[in-house]
């Protein structure tokens, strides 16, 4: 379970202070898929970096599976938005995926198994020896997802992972995330600025205000668990939910002015 309690982050540089996160409190239950959505510049990435232990918060606590986060927690894997910069171009796909496992001292045989399984799960079997830059953008992001999956995390953090891929690839990747989540029984926290994506993917959607950020609103997405791009998006309930989220985000933007 991921618990964020009164999280606050103030950046200070040269005597000037910028409050990015004011007071964020929410929990993500084990096995849940929660989407965080907010207006652009609302400190989504700051929040994610605090949760991932990459950034020290100014106040409040982040607790993952009962342990307070002060550095990168071992049970957490992260997928970055900039797949091209997050994969190491000097390593083959296989080495990229297995590097964190090596670091975890997983024995070689088990490592190879995990890598093969993860690459097969994202539909990339057969690309092990390629370099990431020989693949298309969508495939590169799949490699990054495979790396996270092979790590066998309890929680998966995704920071606008599909913001830089084209619309069709994006739809495929969204379905991939849904199916991986259902199959692997992993907790997913998915950050996006795309309202449709948030409603389509999430079991819950948390809306953030503009910076300095607080939780604006929260909904449970009561769409059927089996979703597909055609029918789910045409569902009247989907439209209702996305309208609600849209209104909340607009309200958040107005309030900040």
């Amino acid at each position, binding site marked *: 379970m991921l618990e964020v309690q009164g999280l606050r982050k103030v950046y200070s540089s040269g005597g000037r202070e910028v409050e990015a996160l004011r007071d964020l409190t929410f929990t993500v239950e084990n096995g849940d898929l929660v989407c965080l959505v907010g207006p652009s510049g609302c400190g989504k990435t700051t929040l994610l970096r605090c949760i991932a232990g990459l950034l020290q918060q100014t106040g409040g606590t982040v607790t993952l599976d009962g342990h307070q986060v002060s550095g990168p927690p071992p049970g957490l894997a992260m997928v970055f938005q900039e797949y091209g910069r*997050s994969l190491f171009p000097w390593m083959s796909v296989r080495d990229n995926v297995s590097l964190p496992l090596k670091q975890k001292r997983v024995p070689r045989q088990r490592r190879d198994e995990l890598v093969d399984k993860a690459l097969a799960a994202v539909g990339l079997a057969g690309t092990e020896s390629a370099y990431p830059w020989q693949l298309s953008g969508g495939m590169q992001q799949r490699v990054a997802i495979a790396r996270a999956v092979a790590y066998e995390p309890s929680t998966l953090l995704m920071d606008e992972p599909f913001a830089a891929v084209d619309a069709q690839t994006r739809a495929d990747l969204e379905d991939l995330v849904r199916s991986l989540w259902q199959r692997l029984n992993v907790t997913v926290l998915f950050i996006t600025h795309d309202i449709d994506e948030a409603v389509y993917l999430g079991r819950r959607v948390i809306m953030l205000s503009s910076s300095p950020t607080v939780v604006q609103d929260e909904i449970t997405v009561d769409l059927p668990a089996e979703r597909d791009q055609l029918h789910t998006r045409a569902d009247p309930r989907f439209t209702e939910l996305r309208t609600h989220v849209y209104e909340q985000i607009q309200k958040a933007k107005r309030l900040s002015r």
Partner: protein
Amino acid sequence: MRRFLYVAGLPVLLLLGWFVLSSGSENFYAPPLRDILRAFVDTWTPERLRADVLPSLVRLFAGYVLAALLGVALGVAIGLNRRLRATVEPVLEFFRAIPPPVLVPVIMLFAGIGDGMKVIVIVFGCVWPILLNTVEGVRAVDGVQLDTAKAYGVRGAARIRTVILPSASPQIAAGLRQALSIAIILMVISEMFAASNGLGFTIVQFQRSFAIPEMWSGIILLGLLGFALSLLFRLAEGRALRWYHGLRDAQRRS
């Protein structure tokens, strides 16, 4: 074939020009190329290569490898540590500004005139481009790559070995390339000052005994050696940085 013509065309033309223009030369100091080539074959026998060229190459290699190890190790330390960088950077700039040949007499005073002196001179000259390029390369490592490493628990020696060094390697290679030509220059200069064998020493000996065609042949041999070494370097670099060239091509295409 066409590419070969482009590459080999100018050198062949220059040689032919030299050969023809110098063929009737009466000037003692600029003998005909024909004589120089004959001297080349007579002078650079296998024994001579073993006695004079091999020691030079060993010193060159020792100095270069030491400089590379030292430069990369210090460069990584300085590049990763902001405080260290602020402390040592002005001093580095000063040392780099000293032309290394000027240190030969000084180094001779405490290191003697043996191989040690020559290796020290080569190290002192070549370490700077390697060091400074490594510092730059390490500082320029992508923030997302560092975050990725951190998020997946890659730290300590593994972080340096698997992330920082490979990421900085194109820049380090640029430093190594600059250092190679400096190393050759310093090898020759240190041997010209004081030595009992080596290429630089032999060329000076020829000059002092007025064996002019032999002297010229030594210069040609040095040129060929430098060319061969840089070719070898390019080959090794191309292999080690295959990913980098591929990445750049991929980025250019998109």
